């Protein structure tokens, strides 16, 4: 046994280990993608019209808002936190969008988008400050702001409803127009997805989010500004929920204070189905978005398959359980393989 051997052996082991781990997570995302494709293929075989341009457009449009929320939620969940307030932030931002157009009908659409993003980011900053500075658990704080933001939305709306007729046609067209068969709203979601995916994968601060989620104490010791990163993650999640609110307004046109009510658990479900570990440290926005699309597709596929639509929620629940069970099995397997290697090495 030479010095060279002892020096290279652990390095080789860890690189083989991380290769194995990354392959498993690739398999995990491929798995959910294959599940989605199987569902679509099976449904399309039963009724070819399921793949008609209109139906595909509806599917994409239906998943868009959930997908945007899922990207934001992933960024937070990766850091071993959770943001339950997203549904309320969406509602607030959607109503703000409507009110803005009511106040000044000629407003440019980019300005509205920026206002929605900023409003969401402000809500996210409240969450982030309470969690990062006061070191309060995210679940409790965002459960609290879920009520507070929704309550503010109710007080603001005071039972009013904003109708499609109150909004500029150009804005509503965003919700119906398509580019090469893809709805414009979905392009927004795609841009968000690619941006967040690139950031989490290739930026130092993006990688640090994973480190924080894997082991917050170790991350702090290795010099990562944990508080700052967690704060930023919540601001990002809030901003994306704000964006989702604007998209919601464009898609539905009719708005009251109830927009996005109860969305939070759907989003967390999509993220979990997409293979993001609920206790942080692993998963990707791509998986989460595929999860969001899968959850939405189940809803439209069941009636086509001749299954009572009342089964939809039950199917979603079973899917979540299957997904986390699969994650656990994979993690155990990776762990055993890695341990096996090190004991041989």
């Amino acid at each position: 046994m030479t010095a060279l051997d002892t020096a290279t052996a652990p390095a080789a082991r860890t690189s083989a280990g991380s290769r194995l781990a990354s392959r498993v997570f690739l398999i995990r995302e491929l798995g959910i993608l294959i599940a989605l494709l199987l569902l679509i293929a099976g449904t399309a075989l039963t009724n070819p019209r399921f793949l008609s341009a209109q139906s595909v457009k509806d599917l994409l449009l239906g998943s868009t808002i959930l997908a945007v929320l899922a990207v934001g939620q992933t960024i937070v969940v990766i850091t071993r936190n959770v943001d339950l307030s997203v549904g309320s932030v969406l509602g607030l931002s959607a109503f703000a969008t409507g009110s803005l157009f009511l106040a000044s009908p000629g407003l440019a659409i980019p300005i509205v988008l920026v206002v929605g993003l900023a409003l969401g980011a402000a809500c996210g900053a409240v969450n982030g400050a309470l969690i990062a500075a006061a070191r309060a658990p995210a679940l409790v704080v965002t459960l609290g702001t879920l009520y507070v933001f929704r309550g503010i939305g109710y007080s603001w709306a005071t039972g009013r409803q904003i109708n499609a007729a109150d909004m500029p046609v150009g804005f509503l067209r965003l919700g119906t127009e398509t580019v090469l068969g893809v709805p414009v709203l979905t392009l927004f979601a795609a841009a968000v997805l690619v941006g967040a995916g690139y950031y989490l994968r290739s930026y130092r601060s993006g990688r640090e989010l994973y480190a924080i989620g894997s082991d917050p104490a170790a991350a702090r010791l290795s010099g990562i500004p944990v508080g700052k990163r967690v704060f930023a993650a919540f601001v990002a999640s809030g901003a994306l929920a704000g964006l989702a609110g604007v998209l919601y307004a464009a898609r539905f046109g009719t708005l009251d204070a109830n927009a996005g009510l109860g969305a939070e658990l759907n989003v967390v479900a999509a993220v979990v189905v997409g293979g993001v570990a609920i206790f942080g440290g692993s998963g990707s926005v791509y998986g989460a978005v595929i999860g969001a699309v899968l959850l939405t597709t189940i809803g439209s596929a069941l009636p086509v398959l001749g299954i009572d639509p009342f089964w939809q929620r039950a199917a979603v629940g079973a899917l979540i359980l299957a997904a986390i069970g699969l994650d656990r099995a994979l993690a155990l397997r990776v762990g055993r393989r890695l341990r096996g290697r090190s004991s041989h090495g």
Partner: protein
Amino acid sequence: MAEWKARLRSALTSWDAVVLLAFILVAVIGALTIDGVASPRFWRFVTLEAIPIVLIALPLTLVVITGEIDLSVASMLGLTCVVLGQLWIWGVSSLPLLIGICLLLGGALGAVNGLFVTRFGLPSLAVTIGTLALYRGLAYVVLGDRAVADYPQSWTTGAIRPIPGTTIPWMILVVAGLAVAFGVVLYATPIGRGLYAMGNSAEAARFSGISVARTKFWLFVATGAMSALAGVFWTLRFASARADNGTGLELAIVAAVLLGGVSIFGGRGGLVGVIAAVALLVTLRNALQLAYVPANTLTIVTGSLLILSVVGPNVAGMLRERLRRRRARVGIADPTPTAAT
């Protein structure tokens, strides 16, 4: 004697006492300033509203103390409601039998949660978000969007019949009995003390001989059974079994448990604070309604209280720490001159 005094002082300054005091303040101020809060009718409604929440909050408190959570409680309640309704349609007309079946069903639903969490080692937050969707979905599968509402009147009035001579529903006695039972388990048995150990460190609890997995499993079963009991009460009180009964109730109950001083990380909190928190929230909501304060204000108040309950102690702790450090610095600076003289 001194020990007794110290214990009294720590009890009075505990979070339990803070919440209890807040409830009493709200009740007294409400009774003095808002028309109707002092009436027996008001307290009848408060009790009726609090009963199902307390029923579920009792076992959920124990679950959260062990560091787990159960978000599927409202879905278990809903599923029990529709199964009760469906069985009634099918001609099961014995109430004790129906209640028995419902409790067994609830226990089974809870056992599924417990199995996933303890046997497969999955995080309870994710598992119960899954069963939240699954159980609610099954409720829709059983009854669709129909409602079953033709129960015998003796059942529906029986469920909310007042204790003779008062306006308070007799169910409160059942709830009180269960609360005492849960309290005895939590405060006076090795199992109960073990729950705190588990919440602080499952590993250490396991090494000290506590069967963590088995205890947690049975806590989930108990949560399911109590949710089912709440479901039976819910069905009879509103004389209606629908698949959407109690939708969204889970977050309200979790909020009450957390406001009651139970740490979301486990290991801290108790039943007194949680019951006081339920009483506080329900009384506040009903009193404000009587005062024509819009319901959304209450939503904001609930959320703020919840945030305050976790942020307040943390910030206070940080300030105290800073103060202590400053004092320590002064303390270190002090001895030098004295040593010189």
